[in-house]
């Protein structure tokens, strides 16, 4: 897709939901001591949050949507568009967005759709949401963008390369498009489908398990993500120094550090939630946003998501009001 812009995009509120059950990679019995230390120091992940009850991802999405609307005093039936980015709708059909629209008793005039994307999904969802809201003939159309997965449903306990990486988590972002605003957001969405096998599922005895080739995910990430971001910044004509936060998908420390180094960005502009929360798929950008304590009144945010596909998307939101973002824990 070409580079794109949308005017008047505002993220009004984000609610992230993680399961209460916390696991510690230092206590993971499948790894030897040396590997545990390497996992924490070099992959950067210590704690993971894991669902305990099977297919509860919908319950987590429902809580996040309700809480975000409640905080903004938005009525659920005034939501124009509901987009869900997930790859762990274990029902496969119907779409998670339709299930949520029905169970939350949202208006039938709500357009509800799923996007089958993972780690790039927050940025892809944001661009899709903004473009669709922009086409609605209202002054301030409203949308909810849900992102996230219960990835541990797809990872085997015995798989030492994926199990210690992923947490379960979801996010709901309440988005408004102010038609009268001239605040421009910039997007660069790309796909490198030759890397489709780097992360995929494999069917074994009627179950599907995620397979991740860490070396190739590293290769695709360092080859394509920095250039995607550089192209976006150049396209926006924004001063690189004016970017307050670079919020990357939380893949692992090796990949995220390599991207940061390629862009020559100071560490304090690149918040990380890997140690605390691990890789939470398409919810990782919102979850990382939730770890920032001192947003300025106005901020220039750069988001970059990359992974399964191999799909890469970056967004630049110059001069955006501080994003109100909270992370909550729930029995799931």
């Amino acid at each position, binding site marked *: 897709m070409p580079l794109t812009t949308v005017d008047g995009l505002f993220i009004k509120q984000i609610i992230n939901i993680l399961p209460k059950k916390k696991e510690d990679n230092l206590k993971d019995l499948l790894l030897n001591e040396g*590997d545990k230390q390497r996992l924490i120091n070099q*992959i950067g992940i210590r704690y993971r949050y894991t669902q305990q009850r099977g297919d509860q991802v919908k319950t987590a999405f429902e809580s996040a949507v309700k809480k975000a609307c409640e905080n903004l005093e938005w009525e659920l039936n005034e939501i124009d568009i509901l987009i869900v980015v997930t790859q762990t709708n274990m029902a496969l059909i119907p779409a998670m967005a339709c299930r949520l629209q029905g169970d939350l008793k949202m208006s039938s005039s709500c357009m509800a759709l799923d996007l089958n994307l993972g780690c790039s999904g927050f940025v892809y969802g944001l661009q899709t949401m903004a473009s669709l809201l922009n086409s609605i003939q209202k002054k301030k159309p409203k949308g909810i963008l849900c992102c996230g997965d219960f990835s541990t449903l797809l990872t085997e306990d015995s798989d030492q390369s994926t199990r210690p990486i992923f947490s379960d988590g979801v996010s709901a972002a309440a988005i408004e498009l102010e038609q009268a605003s001239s605040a421009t957001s910039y997007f660069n969405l790309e796909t490198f489908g030759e890397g489709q096998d780097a992360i995929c599922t494999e069917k074994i005895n009627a179950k599907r398990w995620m397979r991740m080739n*860490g*070396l190739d995910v*590293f*290769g695709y990430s360092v080859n394509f993500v920095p250039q995607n971001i550089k192209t976006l910044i150049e396209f926006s004509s924004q001063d690189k120094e004016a970017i307050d936060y670079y919020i990357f998908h939380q893949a692992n420390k*090796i990949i995220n550090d*390599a991207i940061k180094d390629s862009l020559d960005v100071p560490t304090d502009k690149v918040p990380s939630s890997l140690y605390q929360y691990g890789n939470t798929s398409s919810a990782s950008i919102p979850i990382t946003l939730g770890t920032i304590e001192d947003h300025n009144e106005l901020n220039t945010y750069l988001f970059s998501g990359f992974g399964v596909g191999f799909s890469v998307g970056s967004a630049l939101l110059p001069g955006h009001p501080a994003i109100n973002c909270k992370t909550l824990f729930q029995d799931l």
Partner: protein
Amino acid sequence: MNISKFLSFTASEFHCDQTLLTSETPIRELPNWNSLNALVFISEIKREFGVILSSKDLTKVVTLQDLYDLIQHRN
């Protein structure tokens, strides 16, 4: 970098005694060779030599000499 320095680099990455390694050591017999440590190794090769190796590259490589030659060829 010559092969001797590459062996020293590899020994330091795998926290083993350099005298245990020769150019004929198969990479899959490096101490604690697993997917996690391979990723760390590949990222250090990128940092040190500016060469990004894929999993396909590694399937073609048997010994440390093969790996050294591939990096030199790409560099």
